């Protein structure tokens, strides 16, 4: 065919992106949520044991990181008394590359003070369904979803139970010398529960194990302490991850240090802790936050099988 064809395809992709970006911005401006143009280059970023930042050097001797999410910057503004906020732009996560992953991708992340946790979930669904139209919707607790698919009890099961399940059902000789019980749960969830989600269904998962709380509050559900964290899947693909945001600094500092210890255990570099963020988090107003993978949403809207098909890659 003509050599112009690849360019035309790229232009088409960019046109769909532009429309989706405009629709997104309209969605937030209607709700009086303010767009924030966050810095991409930062001295410190949010610490996660399994998310690796791209580190960069600049001004000859300085070291920094490209943000993995705008969370810290936005929360510092919220703590200073800002309006509800959103970020719509590129973030970077090193080593992530596959049909549903790319190192540089577009995230839409927003924070709401006036919405309850349930209202935040609904708003997230309202946003997602601007672009895709699921035929039905299901909701499970993490414990329910895991039990239905595997018969395992996320709280009661021991590390040995989980390992024996993995060896019987997933991979007979995979070992986990360094991993915690929570890591094994994540592995099982990703290999058994997520693939079981039906194509046309929007699936909401709530109440993650407290070890997977990240920056979410926890609550007692009966005798079990779970994270007030939710995820939304469509066509088996994770689209959204939201929290009832943790306030205060003692617990936050403890969690960030713990995550750094886990990084070291896995042979990764510990990351600098953003002490401003830790301090400001004591003043964080009661709020809910969520992040949605924009490219994945576009990939589903355009019925692509690879995330790269919905991106303008260089």
């Amino acid at each position, binding site marked *: 065919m003509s050599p112009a064809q690849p360019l035309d395809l790229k232009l088409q992709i960019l046109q769909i992106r532009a429309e989706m970006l405009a629709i997104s911005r309209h969605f937030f401006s209607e709700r009086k949520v303010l767009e924030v143009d966050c810095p991409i280059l930062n001295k410190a970023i949010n610490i996660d044991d399994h998310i690796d930042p791209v580190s960069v050097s600049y001004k000859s001797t300085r070291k920094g990181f490209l943000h993995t999410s705008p969370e810290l910057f936005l929360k510092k503004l919220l703590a200073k008394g800002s309006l509800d906020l959103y970020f719509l732009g590129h973030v970077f996560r090193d080593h992530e590359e596959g049909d549903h992953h790319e190192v540089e991708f577009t995230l839409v992340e927003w924070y709401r003070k006036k919405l309850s946790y349930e209202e935040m979930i609904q708003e997230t669904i309202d946003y997602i369904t601007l672009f895709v139209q699921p035929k039905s919707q299901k909701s499970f607790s993490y414990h329910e979803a895991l039990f239905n698919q595997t018969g395992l009890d996320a709280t009661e099961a021991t590390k040995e139970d989980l390992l024996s399940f993995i060896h019987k059902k997933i991979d007979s000789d995979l070992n986990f010398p360094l991993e915690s019980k929570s890591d094994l749960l994540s592995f099982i969830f990703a290999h058994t529960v997520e693939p079981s989600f039906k194509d046309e269904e929007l699936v909401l998962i709530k109440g993650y194990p407290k070890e*997977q709380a990240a920056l979410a509050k926890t609550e007692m559900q009966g005798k079990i302490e779970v994270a007030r964290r939710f995820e939304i899947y469509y066509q088996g693909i994770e689209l959204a991850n939201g929290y009832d945001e943790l306030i205060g600094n003692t617990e936050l500092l403890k969690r960030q240090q713990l995550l750094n210890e886990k990084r070291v255990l896995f042979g990764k570099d510990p990351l600098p802790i953003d002490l401003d963020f830790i301090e400001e988090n004591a003043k964080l107003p009661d709020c809910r936050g969520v992040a949605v993978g924009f490219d994945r949403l576009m990939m589903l809207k355009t019925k692509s099988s690879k995330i790269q098909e919905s991106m303008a890659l260089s």
Partner: protein
Amino acid sequence: MAQVNTNDLKQGMKVEIDKQPYLIVSLQFVKPGKGQAFTRIKIKNLLTGRVIEKSFRSGEKLEHADIEETEMRMLYQDMENVVFMDDKTFEQFNVPLTQVGDMTQWLMDDKLYSIIFYKQQPITIEPPTFMDMEITETDPGVRGDTASGRVLKPAVTESGAKVQIPIFIEQGERIKIDTRTGEYVSRSTS
């Protein structure tokens, strides 16, 4: 032996796991929101043909399989061996029929095949992706059959492969076949 990082694995690569050579059929990057990243691969054992699935932590290293491929021309086959010749050195080489397995259906004299060696031993052969061959056995196409929606009929080719061909192709005609899928591509143009 050279190693490959699981992040750099590609479909079609040949790796060694538990002292067995495997071909990567497909791969998937699995990364739960707050969990560890894994690469899940579907692999075919090059010695047994068995397909299995395995998970590796991202960043883990795998060994490249000690695999070499050499293009050779098939001379003839007897009861036990298929005899190939290297076009450059004129060296002759026997591959036992038991190793050729399912690929025997694509064997034709005077054609070039890839011989796959594992630790210097031939383990299998790969036919050209597209092969032209004559239809030696098929029922005559029946006019009107298309009305019932039937557009393909069984046939046997000169190499002994059983394939499905369009009903308008007759015995004695030459067709092009995709040996990866065994599917009819077109009438031969050559």
